[in-house]
């Protein structure tokens, strides 16, 4: 079977790659574009380690075919920091020690970004349910939830200023 040619916008920049029709977006990001920040923890959409934002919507990139990315706008963990400055979510994850092994962290950060994009003032409960698709086996989520809510507060402050 011949490869598909896919053009998409990845982290704001035009990107092109060739892929077999059966290849997932996750594999294309990792193997074709060298964006290995998105992780494969399960390959079945259960762990969220491969979370990316496609046209503003949070998706598991292991559940989307790479060919479906044609013409889409994709945001990955590699695009979260702007020009060398960490995103407030990234900074708060560091300050709160919200990561231990760090493997689920890219997915959690992308999912949290998607949350704050639609809900700048989430309650603890809303944050927990939004992030329920992102498994973390190390932290017990306590510091993750605190970091996300603290970052949300900072971002609200920034917007007001």
């Amino acid at each position, binding site marked *: 079977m011949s490869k598909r040619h896919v053009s998409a916008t990845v982290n704001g920049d035009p990107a092109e790659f060739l892929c*077999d029709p059966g290849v997932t977006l996750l594999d294309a990001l*990792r193997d074709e574009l060298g*964006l*290995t*920040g*998105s*992780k*494969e*923890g*399960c*390959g*079945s959409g*259960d*762990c969220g*380690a491969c979370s990316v934002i496609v046209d503003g919507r949070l998706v598991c990139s292991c559940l989307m075919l790479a060919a479906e990315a044609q013409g889409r706008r994709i945001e*990955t*963990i*590699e695009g*979260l*920091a702007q020009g060398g400055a*960490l995103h407030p979510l*990234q900074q708060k*994850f*560091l*300050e*709160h*020690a919200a*990561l*231990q*092994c*760090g*493997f*689920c*962290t*890219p997915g959690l*950060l992308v999912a949290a970004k998607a949350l704050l994009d639609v809900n700048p003032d989430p309650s*603890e*409960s809303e*944050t*927990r*349910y939004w*992030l*329920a*698709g*992102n*498994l*973390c*086996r*190390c*932290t*017990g*989520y*306590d*510091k*993750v*939830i*605190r970091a996300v809510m603290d970052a949300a507060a900072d971002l609200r402050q920034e917007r007001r200023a």
Partner: protein
Amino acid sequence: MSDVLDRPPAAPKLDVVGTRPIRPDGADKVTGRAAFGADFAMPGMLVGKIKRSPHAHARIVAIDTRKARALAGVKAIVTAADFPDLASEEYEGGESASNLRDISLNCMARDKVLYDGHAVAAVAATSSAIADEALALIEVTYEVLPHVIEVEAAMAPDAPLLNAKQFTEGLDSPPGRPSNIAKRNQLARGDLAAGFAAAEVIVEGRYTTAAVHQGYIEPHACVAAFGADGQCQVWSSSQGQFMVRTCCAKILGLESADIRVTPAEIGGGFGGKTTVYLEPLALALSRQSGAPVKMVMTREEVFRATGPTSGAVIYVKLGATRDGRIIAADVELKYQAGAFPGSPVGAGSMTALACYDIENFRITGWDVVTNSPKVAAYRAPGAPIAAFAVESAVDELALKLGADPIALREKNAVRDGLKAAYGPTYRNIGYVETLEAIRDHPHYQTRLGPNQGRGVAVGFWFNVGGESTAAVHVNEDGGAVVVTGNPDIGGSRVSMAMMAAEVLGLPVEKVRPIVADTAAIGFSMLTGGSRTTFATGMAVTQAAQKIVADLKRRAALTWDTAVENVEWRGGSAWYLDPAKPETKPLSLAELAAQSARTGGPLSAEVSLNAQGAGPGFAAHICDVEVDPETGHVTILRYTAAQDVGRAIHPAYVEGQIQGGVAQGGGWALNEEYVFDAEGRMENAGFLDYRVPVASDLPMIDAVIIEVANPRHPFGAKGVGEVPIVPPLAAVANAVRAAIGVRMTDLPLSPPKIRAAIDAR
């Protein structure tokens, strides 16, 4: 003269230890740059995959690889025939002993497959799709045998035998026939019969726990390159690069010097990455193909063929006086080992009564092979299972006596000077302090609503020391590099940097910690047993102290004085001679800049075998609410107090406690291996094997108690493991309080709770 030169502080105040700096590997981990096992690639790399047994127990009659070999793009195929048939040899990796023959046979089955998912062949091909096609073309002829998975069924005299050459060790008289029971161990003290005869109150119960997986989110992954000159390189995610080197050398019959293992970042382990599964196969495939080979497990493979920890059956009988003194205990533990001997029943036995001062007891442990994946270490291996049963029984005892569960535990608590049930005499333990902390915590006083209950449980873990190496190098600008051989599984780099910074008198940001490959640093046992901050931290501290001694010597040389006149403080050498008050101190940067004139580079390496890891104790309170309609249990509030000796980085200590509680909560409520009638795992994925998610849990209040460990330079004890010990019983005891029924079989899934409510 008011100069501080005259009055060096008597006891050094800690500037770095106990603070919460940002971890030095943090930026890479929040930006996606950190390279984990599957993130490494080499030019010309092949894809390696494993053919696995579909049977729980079968004889391998034949393996025909001809069709697969003929497929274009297939570059190598290996089976057990490509590995030496090893003799039995014990290997001490750092947490628990394993047998290298068993590790080899677990990596690749020879003659027999012992569980669904057992590897029988591996292929390397130019693409993932071709490798999959090749696996399908490998023809394996099996003679299917009866299988046994449940532990008591495997112990029965007529059970299907996994290994006809296995005779039970540790019995009073040598067994006449082979058995699935690999070993019996016993601990005893006093006169058990007399103890129970004197007891006024007796509680008794049978408890079971299901096999559960460590559940690290990163599947096992490695890249291996076997050079034409026999020099091998391995990049892999594991808890110990030296462990990987030893296992690969033994399993492939190579020299350790010919294998260099570079540790990738590790995406969780919890004990499950203290052994090898892929690396020897990848090296064998690379040797045959002449190209580097990458192997990455799927989640299904992780569940079917790695970990888990034992499912178990535990019998507990406790006898007490009416005033609440426990005077007799009989505990019998039967643990699944999986396909090869080596369940954590030994540690389960040793920890079972470690929190209690009991005059008469007997603990019997059975290590039983079963047709399920060979168990691997899982956080405080064996202890949570034993604690589930014992702590449930103590809760029953408290109910029967009408006693407060914390007061009952305080009354029977081990203290300094008492001999532990497992042998040694306790020194500098902080157990009673953890009980007092939860007793006095506001959580314990709050009122509960309908369908809610509160449970208390305690836990113990030995903590481990062992062999570690660390090097400290001072840079020409006065900063430093700390080199260790222990993979950073949960923030240990920052702790290493902090201890070095404390000794050197540097801000922690000026110390760069790295985890080195096996050729760049001396031997270290793996990261496990809660040993890294204690043992490797001790090596780091001593290496930094050697640097300080060297710096003082060089300052003395510069000042032309005796080294006794030099003090190291705040990152500088101070001249103590009162006759020369005007002498300016020499900073680390100044001494580093002139190192060529004082003896060359400033560098020190320390290798040690750390002894005296202080044991860890924890006391937990859990509140739950049970939905009587669905049987669903919600954890409402959780408080965990733990003696950590000294928290080097309190935030990561809290993180260990919170993570252990979450895992224990999953073990209590959701997680279990489910096998079908043919012995195949039915729930080998995160959808059906449900680990706790963010919406399942409340905030977890971690209460740090610090009873210093005098054997560690800053007082640290291991912290990572004991937090998973109490939660199983804390949750179950809370459920008992909520529904009025003692639940004895984990997990406490909704159907079981519903049935218990209906039957009450």
